[in-house]
């Protein structure tokens, strides 16, 4: 199996035509705007923005299927848990209006288990679902849509020092190598009868049983890093500020995107500061009976 970075060049894809700096700045603004609000009415436009970028990126279901299934499973599970238990939402509401309640037909030591769905829990779960899904969708786009050769120069352009910025390039360069080494070790141990899928025992026992994979991969990475450091030293890395051959130039669309991102962040921050970012519960739902009332 070949292990490669996820980026694929897609002609005429809007996201890939952007300067990676503009995209990263917009992503940062989107992140701030999203975490500023729990109001579903304000979150839905952000979801729209995320959907716009996903559909304009030309990602195919086949190449992103695993990521989407993981995110969907994660979001649905935790949103469902929130809806049924009210976990995490208590700080956003003090009163709950009961939409439905189901009491167990038995009691344990005088306590009867009851499942309550309130308007507040429902809206909180819906807001969380939209929030996490929007953020995850935008995050998925990063590895698929930013050219791995542009990470270093993009972060340098965002003000990071040469050494940190080039570390990003090195990471992109050696992820496939690391993946291939991992696959080699996996093959070597499977040829000795090791079956990863048959790991048994508790968490610590399972981690311990991963040693046949983790130890060789780690040792190999450490040994290989000596060569990498030598190769960098031998070509004068870090002795003075470096020129980056690749030069990124903002286009008009990049400037517009950054401006929109900043406006979005400022607007959502301002709305949050004047009290519009709180959890929204439609008035119609507040007509239901109050829990414990």
């Amino acid at each position: 199996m070949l292990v490669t970075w996820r980026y694929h060049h897609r002609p005429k894809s809007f996201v890939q035509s952007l300067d990676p700096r503009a995209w990263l700045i917009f992503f940062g603004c989107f992140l701030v705007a999203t975490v500023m609000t729990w109001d579903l009415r304000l979150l839905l436009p952000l979801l729209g923005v995320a959907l716009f970028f996903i559909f304009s990126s030309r990602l195919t279901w086949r190449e992103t299927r695993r990521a989407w299934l993981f995110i969907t499973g994660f979001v649905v599970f935790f949103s469902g848990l929130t809806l049924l238990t009210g976990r995490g939402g208590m700080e956003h509401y003090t009163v709950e209006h009961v939409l439905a309640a189901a009491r167990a037909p038995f009691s344990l030591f005088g306590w009867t288990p009851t499942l309550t769905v309130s308007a507040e829990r429902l809206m909180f779960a819906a807001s969380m679902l939209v929030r996490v899904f929007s953020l995850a969708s935008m995050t998925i786009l990063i590895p698929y849509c930013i050219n791995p050769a542009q990470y270093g120069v993009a972060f340098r352009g965002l003000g990071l020092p040469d050494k940190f910025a080039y570390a990003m390039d090195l990471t992109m360069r050696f992820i496939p190598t690391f993946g291939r080494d991992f696959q080699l070790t996996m093959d070597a141990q499977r040829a000795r009868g090791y079956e990863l899928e048959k790991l048994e025992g508790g968490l610590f026992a399972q981690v311990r049983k991963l040693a046949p994979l983790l130890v060789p991969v780690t040792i190999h990475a450490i040994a290989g890093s000596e060569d990498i450091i030598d190769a960098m030293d031998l070509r004068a890395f870090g002795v003075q500020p470096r020129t980056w051959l690749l030069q990124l130039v903002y286009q008009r669309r990049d400037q517009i995107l950054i401006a929109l991102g900043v406006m979005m962040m400022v607007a959502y921050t301002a709305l949050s500061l004047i009290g519009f970012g709180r959890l929204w519960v439609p008035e119609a739902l507040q007509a239901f009976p109050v829990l414990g009332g």
Partner: protein
Amino acid sequence: MTTPVPASVPLVNVAGLSFRYRDRDTLAIQDISFEVPAGEVLLVAGASGCGKTTLIRCLNGLIPRSYKGELQGRIELLGQDTASMPLARISQMVGTVLQDPERQILGTRVLYEVAFGLENLSLPRDEIRERAEQALAYLNIMDLRDRETFHLSGGEKQKVALAGVLAMRPRILILDEPLASLDPASAYETLDFVRQLADEGMTVIMIEHRVEDVLRIRPDRVLFMSEGRLRYLGVPEGMAGAIDTREVKLPASQIIARARTEPPEPTVVPLLQPEDPPSAPIVRFEHASFGYEPSLPVLHDISLDIHRGDIVAVLGPNGAGKTTLIKHAIGLLKPTEGRVLVDGRDTRQLSVAQVAATLGYVFQSPSHMLFAPTVHDELAFGPRNLHHDPAQIEKEVIHALDVVNLRGMENDPPLALSFGQQKRVSIAAVLAMRSRVLVMDEPTAGQDYRNVLDFMDAIVQMPGFEAILFITHDVDLAVIYANRVLLVSGGWLAADGAPRAVLGDAERLRRCRIVPTSLLELNLQRPTSAGRFLRAEELARAA
């Protein structure tokens, strides 16, 4: 590429050089002195651990700047003492291509990789682009300019690494085992470039175990090292009489000449011999084809049998599909068409663990598999996975340790052993599983000639295996040890048969990028009734 300088001016002047690493008690190199003029190719040879790499690190400035220790003596490059020079300045005088281009290549794309050193020198963008493209054009790899470096072949990576160094326009070029991972044809292409560079005035210092291959480009002198000391410095023709011919791989004619003056060594006879008639095959490929993607087939319609007594060498150029073929035999990959049978059972119905009881696979680098705290635990790992009885496992571990001659080292950590010992532990791990067929991928890559012969002599005399299968780029390994050769090219089985039948077809070898060695040619000159091929020492006696 380089500014010509008078051949009489020594570009490298080393005087009384000694070095001891900070964490070692003994000197890695001692009292080394030599000069190298412009345009000379100096071949540095010697067994593993003789100090070659330390010498190179002193020349390119990594010692003492990155590797600390006690340095004595003087190094002058282009007439200037390097003691107080920053590494950035030395790197513009000396370019170094490391042994493993995979780790040396730092850029994700070829152009950025070649430009890396120039970017670090803060040159203007236009100049960087111009010099990088000149280096690519010089090496005839302009077509690789925008390719991702990870997807390049071994030979292409070697050239890209070289281009990255040449772009900095050094006067001196150091190559550390540049042929280690290349197939013969790619190795010869690399060597031709080296000769061309030297002819244009560059000084080249090349470390290489494959001395026979390097002699083809007429190095001006050879520097032979042993135990940290300089043992021979002179023309290549004088080397055979001055050194132990088992430490480096020399042309067969030189080994024969030397062997005639020495007492004969005991003949190594493989325990395994082909059966006549052969019994039921242990492994059978029936029209097996495979591709990671349907549109990109890697193997095409492979049909072959592995029988008891076979010692099979799998030869072919880089990317031919040799490893993919072997992975089908051990069940790591399943064919997309046709089938592969192990002991008569389709590998699609077998887990890799079930196949491991029949075929044991030793990877090229032992560091990809060793993990346990002791040699004993390492050897018991496989049998435990195969659910052998605990008492049986103890017997299997002891038997394996005896066979590979590692008794007494049961409690040593495998990762602290020497490379040769680690190799033996990896073989013992297969032996302990009671695998009947030993499968090895490049068993001798990167080892010196003495270790290669000792290792393979031990393998073919090891009891417990019914057949041996190994992938190699070293044609002489096939000549000396195999009783059958598979030639793989472009995913097809180009030939399968006795060594004389397969390796005697010069045109087919050329098509498969296999370059005949002097040992093969001398063997082919012997009468066809002579049976198996002989190693050079045996040829000396046979003549």
